[in-house]
């Protein structure tokens, strides 16, 4: 067991996940420190989403351990709930609550999980909605918003919990090209505010400019773990080389 540094938030050890016979994650090891902005890259099916979902406990690993501040995650529902309230997630398909307005979407977690007062929850919702530029839309329902707007609301919803880590699973992949920039700008801003983030993305420019670490996944393994300056200029693994050349050739 490695010694835990003061800045460590999440540590993943030998994490493996199989769906039936199909092994999707193989002995994943990595550590997330405070302030890290980690981008996970890799081709389709390499296990990126599954890794994030395991970290958030939406999937249970078949083998291996996840530690939060040095403590292994508990298996009880209560413990899982509490952990999730500190490790938020933003999904490719937004997953907003369709029966609630933008404002109520952002107050649900703070009211029902953190048990903040109505005023407090309202204040937080407005402040985060302002920071993603969605405050004027508090009375709209998700179905009345564009994809980019929905995703910014989803980010605000996550931020309202004051999470220690926010996980993003391809937050811009379901968006029209002209909306992508808005969402990436919001995430850039968050990185500037030192929010710890793990981001699965296909936005290479974003990964290069904003992250401090890139994990490259292939067939369930993390085959490269390097700062973006190294990863993008001098990738080691043949699959990473191939992946990058495919991206930057067109």
């Amino acid at each position, binding site marked *: 067991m490695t010694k835990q540094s003061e800045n460590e938030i999440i540590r993943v050890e030998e994490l493996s996940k199989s769906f039936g016979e199909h092994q999707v994650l193989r002995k994943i090891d990595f550590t997330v420190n405070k302030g890290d902005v980690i981008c996970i890259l890799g081709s389709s099916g390499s296990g990126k989403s599954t890794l994030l979902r395991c970290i958030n406990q939406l999937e249970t690993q078949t083998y291996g351990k996840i530690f939060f501040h040095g403590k292994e995650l508990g298996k009880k529902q209560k413990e899982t709930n509490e*952990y999730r309230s500190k490790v938020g997630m933003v999904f490719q398909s937004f997953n907003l609550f369709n029966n609630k307005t933008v404002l109520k979407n952002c107050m649900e977690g703070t009211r029902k999980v953190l048990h903040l007062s109505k005023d407090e929850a309202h204040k937080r919702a407005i402040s985060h909605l302002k920071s993603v530029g969605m405050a004027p839309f508090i009375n709209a329902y998700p179905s009345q918003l564009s994809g980019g707007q929905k995703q910014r609301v989803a980010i605000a919803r996550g931020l309202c919990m004051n999470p220690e880590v926010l996980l993003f699973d391809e937050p811009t992949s379901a968006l029209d090209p002209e909306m992508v920039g808005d969402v990436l700008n919001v995430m850039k801003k968050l990185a500037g505010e030192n929010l710890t983030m793990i981001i699965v993305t296909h936005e290479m420019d974003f990964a290069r400019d904003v992250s401090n670490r890139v994990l490259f996944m292939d067939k369930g393994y993390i085959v490269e773990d390097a700062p973006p300056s190294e990863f993008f200029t001098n990738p080691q693994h043949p699959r990473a080389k191939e992946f990058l050349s495919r991206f930057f050739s067109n």
Partner: protein
Amino acid sequence: MTDTPNTTLEWIGFIAEKYSDLFIRGTWLTLLISVSGTLIGFVLGYIIGIIEDTKINKEDNIIKKAILGLLKVISKIYVEVFRDTPMIVQAMVIYFGIKLAGFAIEPIPAAILVTLLNTGAYMSETVRAGIKSIDIGQREGALALGMSPISTMFNIILPQAFKNIVPEMANTFLTNLKMTSVLNVIGVQELFLMAKTAGGTYYKYFESYLVIAIIYFVLCFVFNRIFLFAEKKMSQQKNYGLAVEYMENTQ
């Protein structure tokens, strides 16, 4: 009897007037049984539907697993039995079964019991389908905030499932309203039995049953319109106004 009616039309009017008390009482009873049976049946259907949708978690303790497992088995059997037997037979078996077991039961509570059990069995399937119709993403969105599975169910999934199954609930109620007519077999004085009584005196069955046919029709017609109106109201999404007080910070 000086003013004995001659034509069928006159007979209908005569019967309707002469036995108006019976018909009115029958109508009330029909409404009482179908409304209360349906409402309680809905609650039962929701409970069963939620039980069936709840997954047994490997990490739960033994007692919780055992209770949930038992509930699942019971609800499965219950739903299956009530869906696979006619209501008229259920009425007889339940009514006489309770009596045989040595309990006193009046026809009206027995009728409500039969209706609610029948409704619960059908509604549970509807509720389950309604829950399934809400995309898994919203559930995961809630769980990822740290909401418990139960809180997620009640705050996010059920309100939306409810909206989706309102038409089916309305349908169930209308079916029940009509199905109460079979409950005359256990001697509940709902509309059907009243018509039988009224028709018997003068051997004017056609006329008498036509009167209650009209009553059933009017009831169903009116309720149907009300439900359609309510559904329309529910599905209307209000246009939102931009919150101008927060406009200056927009991107």
